């Protein structure tokens, strides 16, 4: 009992710390910004840090404003100040202009505390969004494949033919239209809708014809092969090769690549767990009660495999954040002007400045430690 209580407290602490990091990530522009949070003008209050339209008002009336509330750290992450405060240590005496640099500055005079806060935003975006996406795709595909393993997807020869032709046509026209007229959401949706409706109709017509031999389509085997192919490209090498393909670096590109690379891990675990749960008595009785497949998958199987999936999700968030930090440490993949933890650490290593290395790494370490503790607790249960 004492053991459980001990782990519970560690778990609570981790959750608490993690949610503070998430909050910092969400409210980063309100915590560290060169623009004030709120200002009193003759026409009423304006919020330059919050609203884009107030920014213009602020910059035009800067001189006349007397009552302004600054953000917690009154520096933007990209504000440089080489002449006054370049590479200042937090312990060193500083020429105080606007405010003290609590965590020092880098070689261009950018405030480290502000960079830390904006770096949290990038790290949280990449960590959580990419894992959310890969969780969604990976778990759906993995569960589907395991669920259809034995009773399977049985199609007659006409249906297989239709499937091949429709996939071919969809890919052919979809890709070439993409090439000819660029990416357009509506055209893509239109094609996809035609594809789905046409496919459904054809499937329906084909199923009307009786006396055709049914063939078993082994989706599970295909998934295993896909996972094997993904596993044969080792992590950071394929990540580096893929990031170089994009001409314009951005956070969303990194999120997409990490999602593309990590969904197979979720699919693998969801598949294995579903295979274990699938033949339990309560699933069999749900079948006998006549529940439809989607309900069985999401109401009966998913809750039972969730705790082991959360373990994987925790590790994946950690490794996604580490991957982002590694990439920006190497100076690849993110826009040059964006301040991230990895970039600060790389600069600190080159310039031998301890505060540039210590604080971002400490933040990374705390996040990973929290995630590992949470994963540990779920693993024990």
């Amino acid at each position, binding site marked *: 009992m004492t053991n459980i209580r001990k782990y519970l407290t560690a778990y609570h602490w981790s959750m608490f710390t993690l949610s503070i990091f998430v909050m910092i990530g969400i409210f980063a522009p309100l915590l560290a910004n060169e623009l004030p949070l709120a200002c009193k003008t003759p026409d009423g209050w304006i919020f330059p840090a919050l609203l884009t339209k107030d920014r213009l008002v602020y910059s035009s009336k800067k001189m006349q404003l007397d009552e302004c509330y600054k953000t917690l750290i009154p520096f933007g992450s990209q504000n440089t100040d080489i002449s006054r405060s370049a590479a200042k240590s937090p312990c060193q005496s500083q020429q105080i202009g606007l405010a003290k640099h609590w965590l020092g500055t880098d070689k261009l005079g950018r405030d480290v505390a502000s960079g830390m806060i904006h770096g949290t935003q990038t790290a949280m975006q990449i960590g959580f969004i990419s894992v959310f996406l890969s969780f969604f795709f990976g778990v759906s595909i993995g569960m589907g494949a395991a669920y259809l393993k034995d009773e399977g997807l049985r199609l007659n020869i006409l249906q297989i033919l239709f499937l091949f032709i429709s996939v*071919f*046509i969809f890919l*052919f026209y979809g890709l*070439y239209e993409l*090439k*000819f007229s660029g990416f357009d959401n509506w055209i893509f949706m239109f094609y996809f809708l035609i594809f789905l409706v046409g496919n459904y109709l054809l499937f329906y017509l084909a199923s009307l014809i009786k006396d055709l031999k049914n063939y078993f389509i082994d989706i599970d085997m295909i998934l295993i*092969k896909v996972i*094997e*192919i993904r*596993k*044969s*490209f*080792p*992590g*950071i*090498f*394929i990540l*580096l*090769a*893929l990031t*170089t*393909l994009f*001409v314009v670096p951005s956070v969303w590109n990194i999120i997409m690549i990490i999602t593309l690379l990590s969904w197979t891990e979720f699919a693998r675990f969801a598949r294995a767990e579903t295979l274990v749960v699938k033949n339990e008595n309560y699933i069999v009785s749900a079948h006998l009660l006549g529940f439809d497949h989607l309900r069985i998958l999401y109401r009966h199987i998913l809750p039972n495999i969730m705790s082991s999936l959360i373990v994987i999700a925790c590790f994946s968030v950690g490794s996604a954040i*580490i991957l982002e*930090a*590694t990439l920006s*440490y*190497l100076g*690849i993949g993110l826009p040059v002007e964006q301040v991230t933890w*990895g970039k600060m*650490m*790389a600069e*600190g*290593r080159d310039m*031998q*400045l*301890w505060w540039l*290395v*210590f604080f*971002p*790494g400490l933040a*990374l*370490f705390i996040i*990973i*430690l929290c995630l*590992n*503790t949470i994963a*540990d607790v779920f693993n024990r249960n």
Partner: protein
Amino acid sequence: MGIFALKRILLLLPTMGIVMILAFFLSKWVPGDAAESFLALQGVQQESNNYKIEYERNYKLLNLDEPLFYFSVIPDFYHPNINEIILPLQRQQVSSLLKQKYASKAILNYISDRDESIKIIKNWKEKNGVISEIMDELLVKASFATEINEIDGVWQTIKPLIADGLHEACPVYRSVEKLTTNKVHWYFPLIKWHGSSNQFHHWVSGLIRGDLGLSIKDGREVSHKILAALKWTLLLAFANFIITGIIAIPSGLAAGYRAGSIYDRISNFVWLILYSIPVFWLASMFIVYCTSSNYASWLNIFPVPGLWYVPDGQSMWTTVVNYSHLLVLPIICLVANDIAQLSRIVRSKVMDQKSEMYVMMAKAKGQSDFKILIKHILPNVMVPLITVLGGKLPAGLSGALIIEVIFNIPGMGRLMYNSIYYADWNVVFGILIIVSLFTILIMLLTDILYAYVNPKVKTALS
């Protein structure tokens, strides 16, 4: 056993094929023109007279004029093999016009007619001594235009500037008209078979011969560069492997056997901390604090990570001895995470085994704890560990990348990183495919080894 191995190999062949196809198409997707980079490497300037001839020679030498794959699925109005057009500018113009859905025959017709017309007009100008800057500008514009409106507009502005009746001699007016009428609205897929003379075929046969092309940075063979780098990465990987095993397995065994003891709790805590430390943070902290006397003179323990000078003929052993002091810090950083991970795995496996009947039997016989651990539990723990360790080896290759970059070790990771900066795609994708094939090989070996040492699988096979 042999049949099992053969079956595994046969099952891995399609995976290998798809991995190769993916790596090849990724390498073809990168920006830039390979032939142009090779010309730059040979020192042929774009302004020099023989540029065109040299370009053509290099283009054909690199097989760039061939189609990409054995077959291609294209719209029926498309050019069957757009790579046949050797001049890069012309190739871009054709593909840009194809994107606007004009039939390829009309496009090729237009391009040859355009060049001929420009020649005719230039001849006419020389003969009649016409000097007109606007005209020159328009002609340049005409030779670069890719949008249909622009093309039409330019030629219509040229029309009144040249002598009456000359535009009848220029075939371009007819072909532009033809081009506009040949706009395609509907198209059908066309599957074209190219046979074995394609770029993928050449690439794969090169790969089998060990020929991955030339590096555009220094003109050396990619395979030589990779082999030289691979030694270092393998050295790091094996050092990591052995040190991790030596420390993690005993510590995991002891912790698992005495689960709940003070030692177990302390080691659990330490491993949890060590497991969560980002490797490059550890490395950077070591470099900042422990390689100079900036912060305290007693902290200056390790040498500064320096540049490595490795002459071509020098044996690996000499280099290792020369630079052994530089290898200490990288290996410490490399093993930190892995020790923690492995010892936690061993601990949980030992805890599973501890409650088995055979352990109780051994205890009842009065064997010492040490003997039970080494003789009875360890072999049973090692069997599932094979899969874990097999997965660690390729992961070690990726883990070594950032360590190699930070500590300037001339391994694969550093080579890859530098090659990305030089846009040296042959090396980047050469490394990618070699590392992938290596990973597949390790997967195969672990599977076979697992089946070999595990009596359950062995009997099930026979």
